[in-house]
């Protein structure tokens, strides 16, 4: 954990003014009260571009307190450029402690992944959302999609998934995979790979979703049902990898493919860099870790 940095003068705690934070908190409370429902909010311009996590940053700014410990990940990693940038932003404007350890964090802002380490009660997971509307690519008009949600008319999506099966033999949606929340609203889990969808189901953590450009906040309260859409004869399934992580030998985790050379050499490593590093610290060794242990001991 890094000690809090002195707060950058000239801006309010966590950048946004208190009135704006109150407005965002109201939207968050409403979102929690109606799980999966997209609450419009007066999204502000932030000092990072739209599409780079402004929704998540505003939600984080609204829920962050001085005693919080913040973790920011992008693609599962704490080290990717945008995660570094957002973590620095809050270290600077809020002076909060930051960490890369999932278990130590009270607030985790994420883009495209849910950490492999199971989340605990009291933690908040803040998702950055580019397109909050699960029906957007089937119906471009907001006036129409709001009607469809009001009527719980989700036939369009079922037809789309059915057409996938008819054309490809299985559902060809690998991320942004739609879910039904608390038996009512269809929700976009943000572009996390569908691998992570089961982690949302009855998670003890509070899950908040912020879409800055589209001006929407939605939420999944702790211990809420989150069910990925499927058909009886084509049940939902997640991606599987043939090999364990080449560095920490973890199985049942999401792996990134790393191209080693131009002759088809590949290695697969944990997308969750903190999970991978802590497993290696615990002595787990994958086949490409330099000091690999003999097989069977990892």
């Amino acid at each position, binding site marked *: 954990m890094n000690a809090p940095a002195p707060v950058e003068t000239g801006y309010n705690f966590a950048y946004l003014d208190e009135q704006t934070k109150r407005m965002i908190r109201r939207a968050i409370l409403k979102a929690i009260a109606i799980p999966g429902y997209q609450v419009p909010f007066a999204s502000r*311009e932030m000092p990072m571009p*739209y599409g780079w996590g402004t929704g998540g940053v505003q939600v984080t700014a609204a829920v962050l307190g001085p005693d919080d410990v913040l973790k920011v990940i992008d693609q599962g990693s704490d*080290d990717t450029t945008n995660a570094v940038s957002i973590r*620095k932003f809050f270290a600077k404007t809020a002076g909060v402690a930051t960490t890369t350890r999932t278990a130590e964090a009270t607030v985790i802002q994420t883009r*495209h992944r849910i950490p492999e380490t199971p989340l605990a009660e009291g933690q908040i997971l803040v998702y950055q959302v580019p397109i909050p509307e699960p029906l957007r690519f089937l119906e471009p008009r907001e006036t129409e999609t709001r009607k469809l949600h009001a009527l719980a008319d989700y036939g369009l999506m079922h037809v789309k998934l059915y057409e996938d099966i008819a054309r490809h033999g299985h559902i060809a949606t690998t*991320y942004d995979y739609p879910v039904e929340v608390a038996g009512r609203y269809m929700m976009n889990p943000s572009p996390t790979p569908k691998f992570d969808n089961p982690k949302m189901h009855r998670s003890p953590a509070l899950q908040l979703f912020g879409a800055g450009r589209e001006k929407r906040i939605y939420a999944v309260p702790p211990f809420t049902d989150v069910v990925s859409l499927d058909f009886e004869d084509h049940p939902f399934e997640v991606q599987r990898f043939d090999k364990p992580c080449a560095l920490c030998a973890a199985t049942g985790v999401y792996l990134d493919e790393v191209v080693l050379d131009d002759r088809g050499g590949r290695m697969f490593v944990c997308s969750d860099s903190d999970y991978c590093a802590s497993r290696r610290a615990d002595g787990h060794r994958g086949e490409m870790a330099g000091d690999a242990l003999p097989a069977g001991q990892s």
Partner: protein
Amino acid sequence: MYVAVKGGEAAIDNAHALLAHERRGPEDIAEIAPDQIEHQLSLAVDRVMAEGSLYDSALAALAIKQARGDLIEAIFLVRAFRTTLPRFGHSEPLDTAKMAIERRISATYKDLPGGQVLGPTFDYTHRLIDFMLAAGVTPPQPVEAPAERGAVPRVTDLLDGEQLIEAETPRDGEPVGDLTRAPLDFPADRDLRLQALARGDEGFLLALGYSTQRGYGRTHPFVGEIRFGEVMAEFVPEELGFAVPLGPVALTECQMVNQFHGNAEQPPQFTRGYGLVFGQSERKAMSMSLVDRALRTREFGEDVVAPAQDEEFVLSHCDNVQATGFVEHLKLPHYVDFQAELGLVRRMRAEHEAARETLREAAE
């Protein structure tokens, strides 16, 4: 041990240091000062103020310098600064009839009360590169004449006197919306549409306005009037109860007079399209008024058939800070989603191959 490539804080810091170095350029060339930008590139400053939604020319000039002349980046800087400013109220409605006119032209009347005032304009210049400018020649003193006294009535007010144009009636009691404080909801009323257009991207609105002229939602526009000059902004502090001047604001206003409209109950009347922007930008004000009129299609019971008439399409895409952010976010890593697609395509190709294999075996 191989470690997957990461951005790394040091790399980011180095990239930013290099940016600052590139911004400065060769050190044997004098560094540009924000006040030079403010006063010599003032139309760029005007655009940044207009689309940045903040009337502060010194700040806009500094943003242009910081953005290395990338105006959308400068607009973005100004917007992010604007977010942090407290809002203590809103001004009284501006009365553009009381504008201190620098330029005022009408395309519908040859002469009119207040006259045609050409002012500083590129119109009628020959677009020949002026090599004398490179040499730094002092321009001749402009001709001076005493300013006309009294208000200059708006052309649309002249038409309104005869009821030839639809009346512009304020919605009494209803507060004017503010899309920077409340999320935009569709269908949006004209106040919010105009606000979105006023801060919308000049290029996007230009193209949309142009498309209406080429048949994608024709509106038969005439430039009733374009005026540019300063108008006093006034504010009523609660504790005083009367309006006090805050300062002059330079504005370009365009009033389009559009195709008439009438039915069994109403005699035919011209309709309006309105444009208003900070600073001098006739292109933006004109485009805005074309698009404003096109977006009123529903109001007049006409069919929405063209992009410029489609309010969800126009309002959702006219903000260049939103647009540039989302387009450019594609530069961010998308490893995990791409991995998911990669896995699926490989699996589908394997299935495809297996199916062909089965077919081949069946054929043999």
